[in-house]
């Protein structure tokens, strides 16, 4: 039997648009049509002004490394040590993720380093947005 993998999300009707996006290779955020706020995590109204007039849009995928820890304990689907990071997206919201294609060390992982999104397919329904050091 295969070793247990990482915990995977179960989308809800309110978040399905985000996970549809990652399956299609897009990082989708929401923007309020009333006040212009970009926000995350997904919900069908604006957390800034409560307007229900909101739209999905494709984010640039550019981010900077905002903060992280390097976890040294075993977790299903991960090989310690590995970084659990929060990235600051160019569009404003922050999200938790992992940093890939990069040494998992304090020296390699510098706060404010530029990152770009990559998509890692987990199964037929779930693709996770991860981040790697920006190439350009």
């Amino acid at each position, binding site marked *: 039997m295969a070793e247990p993998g990482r915990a995977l*999300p179960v*989308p809800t009707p309110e978040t399905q648009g985000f996970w549809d996006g990652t399956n299609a290779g897009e990082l989708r955020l929401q923007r309020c049509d009333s006040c212009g706020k970009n926000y995350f995590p997904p919900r069908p109204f604006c957390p800034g002004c409560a307007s229900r007039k909101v739209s999905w849009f494709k984010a640039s995928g550019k981010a900077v490394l905002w*903060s992280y820890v390097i*976890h040294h304990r075993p977790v299903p689907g991960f090989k310690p040590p590995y970084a659990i990071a929060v990235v600051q997206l160019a569009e404003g919201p922050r999200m*938790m993720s992992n940093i890939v294609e990069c040494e998992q060390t304090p020296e390699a992982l510098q706060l404010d380093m530029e990152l770009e999104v990559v998509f890692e397919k987990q199964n037929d329904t779930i693709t996770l947005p991860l981040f790697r050091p920006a190439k350009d």
Partner: protein
Amino acid sequence: MRRNAVTVVGAAETTKLGVIPDMAQIQLHADAALNAMADCGLRPKDIDGIATAGETPVQLAHYLGITPTWVDGTSVGGCSFMIHVRHAAAAIESGLAKTILITHGESGRSRVGVGARSVAASSLNGQFEQPYGPMGPPSMFTIPVLRYMKTYGVTEEQIAQVCVVQREWAAKNPRATFKTPITTDDVLNSRMIAWPFRLLMCCLVTDGGGALILTSAERAKDFRTKPVYILGTGESVETPMVSQMEDFTSSRAFRVAGPTAFQQAGISVNDVDHLMIYDAFAHLPIYGLEDLGFLPRGEAAAFIAARNTAPGGMLPLNTNGGGLSFMHSGMYGMYALQESVRQMRHTAAAQVPNAKISVCHGVGGMFAASGTIIFTNEEP
């Protein structure tokens, strides 16, 4: 006397603290409750209000034989008990109940009579945090700290100093789990958990409980215990997801709860003789000192490293040894409250001489919630 002032008349921890494999979690609640009732000479029939977290008030009322006219099951993590005190004070002031019992019990280490812990995969946490490999508070609560360190130039050594100083307080407390002195190097050389956090920068995981009994100051005169008055209270919540904190260098919930309590109490930070700041991890006293207004942003780590909060310092902080060295069952807030009450009764193991005002500040979840209680032993 201030109209409708409310006091703590009963306060106690469980008979044992630490590793208690022979007691289910609900019995830890009950053991603490019976000790608190014995402390002030009450029996279950004298209690008409009950608040608790971890277990429900229904379970506790039935288990203890209480028929309440007021219940509060606010459960927002380790500061739930500060919030219960705030709600109970309001309930007594407005006449909803006369004598309120607040209990905590947690089989945090032995896990006897405790349900399984899990995060629903369809919750926001389950969808947007759990897939990236966190495993509980040591890998989550700590995530904002690198941003704080970079913003203010704080070092790992300075954060380690928080643990060293608290161990000095724990050495004075016979009930503390760890009493042996430690050095900065001991902290930095302890097992890496989630860099930059080492084992000794993380709280203990133990079994235990505590309970408080509150009544009006008017009625408090009939009790044998020295009344401890509630001078001010505050509460707030921010986000269940640490990744979604507004500011990684400060807690919004702290910045709401703390000043609300100080304003109600009508005091400033300069009036505070004794301070408890819930220390699940070594950075929490740093965030707390700044967000409560004791120090400007970025100065608390150096303040602690300069021994200002150590025994003999100007601002005695976490005098029971804290969650880092005394005990931490999971929802530590009750133990911080117990130490504030002991300091106000002048019965603490590491008593602050002539202490008149104690501030007790709690956190719930991973910067998710906060509650602040300000106590005094002088009739307000």
